[in-house]
């Protein structure tokens, strides 16, 4: 035993490297790849939880055709998800960028508050959902009272009972939860913009806005792109927050695709159909992930 270890493991080196990555490969295979394949298989079956044997009963593309051609609820959740993604990505990015500019070294609000900032991000989305639900409670909600005092016509509305307002509350909760993390990422990006380029622009005669537009923003673009893509991926998958805050309601006004999949799969037991919708959702994800990977893992051509 001892001797075997002492001998220089020349050949074994080759095997060792595979042994070392094996656990990671196994974990990914079991938790990500196998479920994906199994879901793909299920999406072509009748797949009803209450009907024994239906998980092996193949239907071809029927689930997909049904979702796309016959289900207004599917399209509703597609639009909800699209609007939700667009609005949350735009709002978080813009607000996080504004905050980052204020908080970055040389910004106007530079102080010790950056650590506090991360707090909302440390909360689980489900907790954010619950707390926002309480804050918009018509009887004792803090935000409800606040907005009522600020904009009198809103004093007597029941936020989560109104389709548009409930959607707005979901957006608010999401934006609130994501701003801190993205702000920190953007502060990091701003720090890596060489200070000399900003000072050179000032001396060349640019005012604050033009320094930002002509020099800061173009150099921040790669980080900004990562932020937008990453946030898009997370917005597309939003589930827990919606589940706790509105549970997709009122009606289906805030039903995102993830929520729609959950409802069909778990509540109605239509696993096959849910799996087909899940696979439809994979399509935009693949594009986004590909773009993300390309940006993050690209060979550094700078310098």
């Amino acid at each position, binding site marked *: 035993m001892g001797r075997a270890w002492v001998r220089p493991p020349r050949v074994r080196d080759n095997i060792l490297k595979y042994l070392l990555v094996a656990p990671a490969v196994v974990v990914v295979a079991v938790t990500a790849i196998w479920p994906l394949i199994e879901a793909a298989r299920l999406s072509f079956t009748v797949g009803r939880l209450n009907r024994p044997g239906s998980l092996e009963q193949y239907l071809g593309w029927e689930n997909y055709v049904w979702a796309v051609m016959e289900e207004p609820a599917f399209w509703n959740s597609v639009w909800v998800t699209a609007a939700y993604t667009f609005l949350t990505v735009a709002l978080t990015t813009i607000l996080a960028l504004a905050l980052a500019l204020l908080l970055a070294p040389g910004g106007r609000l530079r102080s010790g508050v950056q650590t506090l900032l991360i707090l909302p991000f440390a909360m689980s989305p489900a907790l954010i959902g619950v707390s926002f639900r309480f804050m918009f409670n018509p009887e004792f909600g803090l935000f409800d009272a606040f907005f009522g005092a600020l904009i009198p016509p809103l004093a007597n509305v029941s936020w989560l009972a109104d389709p548009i307002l409930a959607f707005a509350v979901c957006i608010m909760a999401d934006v609130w939860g994501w701003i801190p993390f993205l702000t920190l990422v953007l502060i990091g990006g701003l720090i890596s913009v060489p200070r000399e380029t900003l000072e*050179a*622009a000032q*001396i*060349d*005669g640019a005012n604050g806005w033009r320094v930002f537009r002509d020099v800061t923003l173009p150099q921040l673009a790669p980080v900004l792109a990562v932020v937008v893509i990453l946030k898009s991926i997370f917005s597309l998958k939003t589930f827990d927050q919606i589940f706790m805050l509105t549970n997709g309601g009122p009606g289906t006004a805030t039903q995102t695709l993830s929520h729609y999949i959950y409802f069909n799969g778990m509540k109605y037991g239509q696993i096959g159909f849910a799996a087909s919708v899940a696979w439809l959702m994979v399509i935009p994800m693949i594009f986004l992930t590909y773009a993300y990977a390309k940006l993050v893992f690209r060979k550094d051509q700078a*310098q």
Partner: protein
Amino acid sequence: MAEVILRNLTKRWGDVVGVDDQSLHIRDREFLVLLGPSGCGKTTTMRMIAGLEEPTSGEVWIGDRMVNQDLPKDRDVAMVFQNYGLYPHMSIFDNIAYPLRVRHVTKDEIRPRVEDAARKVELVEFLDRRPRALSGGQRQRVALARAIVRTPKVFLMDEPLSNLDAKLRVLMRAELKHLSHELMTTTVYVTHDQVEAMTLADRVAVMKDGIIQQLGTPDDIYNDPANMFVAGFIGSPAMNLIKGSIKDGDFVTAGGRRLTPTGGKENHSVVLGVRADDIRISDPGEGRLDVTIYAFENTGDSTFLTVQWGTQRIIARGGRHLRKEQGDVVSITMDPDHLYLFDPGSGSRIRN
């Protein structure tokens, strides 16, 4: 074109003093070099002129205007940064054109002016490239072109040559000198390299610890240093500084050797300054003092002899064809017309 006046300028960060109550009058069209070791406050002084750093107290005047309250963009200065500060996402053309664009110069006018500036620094064929596709020397020239593309009141240059290799530095130094004659614009140039200062400057301000030690022409600071710091900082090799005393008009080393006549009052504690150039080397017995060679260096165009007596070592320059060995004995004689005496405590010059 304008003069630049600093009045009692001070910059402090808490306890750290960058610039300490300095006044300086830079004349119109003058090429003034701020020279000093790293950390002495050169960059800070320049950044206060540019408006990138706010003075703790004191005034900055450009022309006949007090500019303390003016933003950098309104001061009409151009600056070449140590790391060039080029815009990495813009082509060389756009880099050079940027100061014109933000000043709303018309398109028809921008192209000829950019091409003209690029021609002056010999960059015309690179206008379509990005900064990262250029070498250090070329980037440096882009920064220069961006500064000269308009006619600012003042040029500010912060160690513009320090990132170049030695050969290129000498080349660019000559180009800068040529360009500055052509442009005749007030220039403040920061460097820690005394050769750059000597060759480029109309006047040099030697700084140490936030304080200007001496302001004068290159001749002044080389031949008539105001204190021991300037004497030791200017010149390569550095001026020899020898501790001793004055007795009967002679300089006597700490070891009791009568080294050279200096004149002057009796003084039990002085420092004698003598440049390597002002020490004559002769055969043993023929000069004032016989010494042993500690090291012999031949640079090709001249030779340097580090010589020793007792524990004292000094460096002398020999002729190009002088050949000696370590351990040889030679005799040295100092040129009495080019000796400097300093007070060892304050470092200030003792003039007879």
